[in-house]
């Protein structure tokens, strides 16, 4: 209890509150620009957190993630172009509402639903993470090996269009992580004569390259010559069309709650992500509605359903990260890098070794939601203007931020060159529909998988059958085989 109180009190320092607010503002800004997204901003911002306390660093990054999820809805509503894929379902009703002159109303509903969904999933995280971590602490190397293989299979199967391509990406990510010194014998592996590679390939070079720079390269290619038609928050429209009444919010409360539950459930499972949650939430709201014919033509319920669901993923995504050390999505994978920079290894042991930090993060998540509400409400007009900044200015500026971030992560131009190489690789992976998410998560989980597998084999005197002799690991391996069969069969049927 003492740790809980101390952790929550830690959040309420001016510095921490300022960093959370800065993170949210940056997040909304980045989220509002089509083509830019939260994980991309987190990857670039991680090197900036070297100089912060662990709590300030993590809350700053989580602030970016929370802000970006709401920011994505701004361009979805005003431009009919989602700021990130998670906001795609928001376009269905957000843009028609904006065309009816109700952009302000739609944006406010998006904000309130986002904050509600986010808070709901944070509360679930706070309630369930510690008990799950207690169970996870009882797992040995064979169980951890089986859980990681299962998680990678699930992520590989749902992150892209093809299970096989996902598995190739995961295996390749694990292989790339082998570059550097062997963790047991400390002999160089796959360094190709480069001394710089003996420390391994920096996560930030891969993160910034694949998440940010490759996306910018694609956006530059797709950069439409025809300008997007933006709807501004008009002054000529009626006042009631720009505000959201309590009655209207109350009317959508049931939908918001349903979507929050869906988003939290989806977020707790590795790999599924906010886009799936948003579409599931939207679909469920449409099925439950008495007026489903209004969906797609501009109903507030549609905006509320999509936004509550995609934001409810944020907190829930941290459940597998905090309890098992397994990142549920690519943002969580980058967060692992941030944790490690500050000497914290995510997983069940974190509750024993860094209890105060965990409760500090919990407090910060809740504070971030309040700040998201305040900043989102007061900055609405400003953020609505952000989408009008021309891409010819934004993308070159982001490229120079990528170069700076990669340099800061390793203090060398070698890391920048690696970042460019991974950006090119990311470009091809995206074009050929190989999941870069699975690649990055495979890269992050590689060392844990290698260590647990080697420990298992040492314990069993090089007998891999030990994985099948322990009930929990056997259960997870059966689940893995079942998932491959089931998901592979489904993909085969769908062509």
């Amino acid at each position, binding site marked *: 209890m003492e740790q809980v109180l101390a952790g929550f009190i830690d959040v309420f320092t001016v510095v921490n509150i300022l960093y959370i607010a800065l993170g949210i503002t940056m997040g909304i800004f980045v989220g509002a620009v089509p083509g830019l997204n939260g994980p991309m901003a987190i990857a670039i911002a991680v090197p*900036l957190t070297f*100089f912060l306390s662990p709590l300030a660093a993590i809350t700053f990054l989580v602030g970016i993630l929370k802000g970006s999820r709401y920011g994505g809805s701004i361009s979805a509503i005003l431009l009919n172009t989602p700021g990130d894929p998670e906001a795609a379902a928001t376009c269905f009703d957000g843009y028609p509402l904006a065309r009816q002159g109700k952009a302000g109303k739609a944006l406010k509903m998006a904000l309130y639903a986002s904050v509600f969904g986010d808070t709901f999933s944070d509360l679930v995280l706070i309630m369930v993470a510690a008990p799950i971590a207690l169970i996870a602490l009882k797992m040995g190397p064979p169980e951890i090996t089986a859980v990681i293989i299962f998680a990678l299979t699930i992520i590989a199967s749902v992150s892209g269009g*093809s299970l*096989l*391509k996902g*598995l*190739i990406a995961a*295996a*390749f990510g*694990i*292989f790339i992580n*082998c570059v550097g010194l*062997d963790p*047991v*014998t400390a*002999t*160089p*592996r*796959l*360094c*190709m004569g480069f001394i710089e590679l003996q420390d391994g390939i920096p996560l930030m070079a891969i993160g910034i390259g694949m998440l940010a720079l490759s996306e910018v*390269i694609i956006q*530059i*290619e797709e*950069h439409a*010559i025809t300008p997007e038609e933006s709807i501004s928050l008009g002054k000529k429209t009626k006042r009631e069309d720009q505000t959201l009444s309590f009655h209207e919010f109350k009317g959508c409360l049931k939908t918001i709650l349903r979507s929050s539950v869906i988003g939290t459930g989806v977020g707790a499972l590795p790999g599924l992500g906010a886009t799936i949650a948003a579409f599931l939430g939207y679909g469920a709201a449409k099925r439950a509605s008495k007026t489903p014919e209004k969906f797609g033509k501009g109903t507030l319920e549609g905006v509320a359903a999509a936004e509550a669901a995609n934001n409810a993923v944020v907190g829930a995504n941290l459940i597998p990260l905090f309890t098992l050390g397994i990142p549920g999505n690519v943002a969580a994978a980058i967060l692992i890098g941030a944790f490690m920079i500050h000497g914290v290894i995510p997983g069940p042991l974190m509750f024993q070794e860094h209890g105060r930090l965990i409760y500090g993060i919990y407090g910060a998540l809740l504070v971030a939601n309040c700040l998201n509400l305040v900043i989102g409400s007061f900055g609405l007009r400003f953020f609505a203007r952000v989408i009008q900044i*021309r*891409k*010819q*200015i934004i*993308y*070159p*500026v982001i*490229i*120079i*931020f990528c*170069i*700076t971030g990669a*340099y*800061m992560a390793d203090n060398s*131009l070698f890391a*920048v*060159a690696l970042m*460019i190489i991974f*950006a*090119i690789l990311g*470009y*091809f992976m995206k*074009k*050929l*529909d190989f999941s870069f998410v699975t690649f990055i998560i495979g890269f992050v989980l*590689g060392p844990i998988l*290698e260590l647990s*597998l*080697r420990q298992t*084999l*040492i314990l069993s005197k*090089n007998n891999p059958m030990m994985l099948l002799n322990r009930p929990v690991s056997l259960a997870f391996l059966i689940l893995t085989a079942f998932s491959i069969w089931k998901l592979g069969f489904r993909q085969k049927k769908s*062509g």
Partner: protein
Amino acid sequence: MRRADIVTAAILFVAGLLTVFVIIPLQTTAGERYGLPPAFFPTCSMAAATAFSLLLLLRSLVQSRGDAVLPASLTSRSWLHIGSVSALLFLCLGVIKYLGFIVGGILMVASFMIYMRERRLVTISLVSIITPTSIYFILWNFLRILLP
């Protein structure tokens, strides 16, 4: 996409075999001191990637017989784009290495703005000069990080 899948899977399969049988043995120490040899895990992961590539190749070959070939995801325009962007990035990285971050950064921002068909000289000059210069000075004055 299926033609691209066949080519990609074939390249990955050949590259995987090359890695497993040539690169890994050459680039890792073979000796087993305690537990498993250092080459064990890279070999396992690359062998898995190679096996999955072979499966992808076989599946794409079987599927492509009956179905229409989907439009290519990598067109000649894509190759030209990624080639130009990569060349530009590495060129600017070279300039950063030899002439410093500010000069290289200005060149990088300006060249990408021109590449994106920005034609207003004042905008190009202002954005390309202000961005790298302010990043350099903010990092040095507030975080004591010296960029090259």
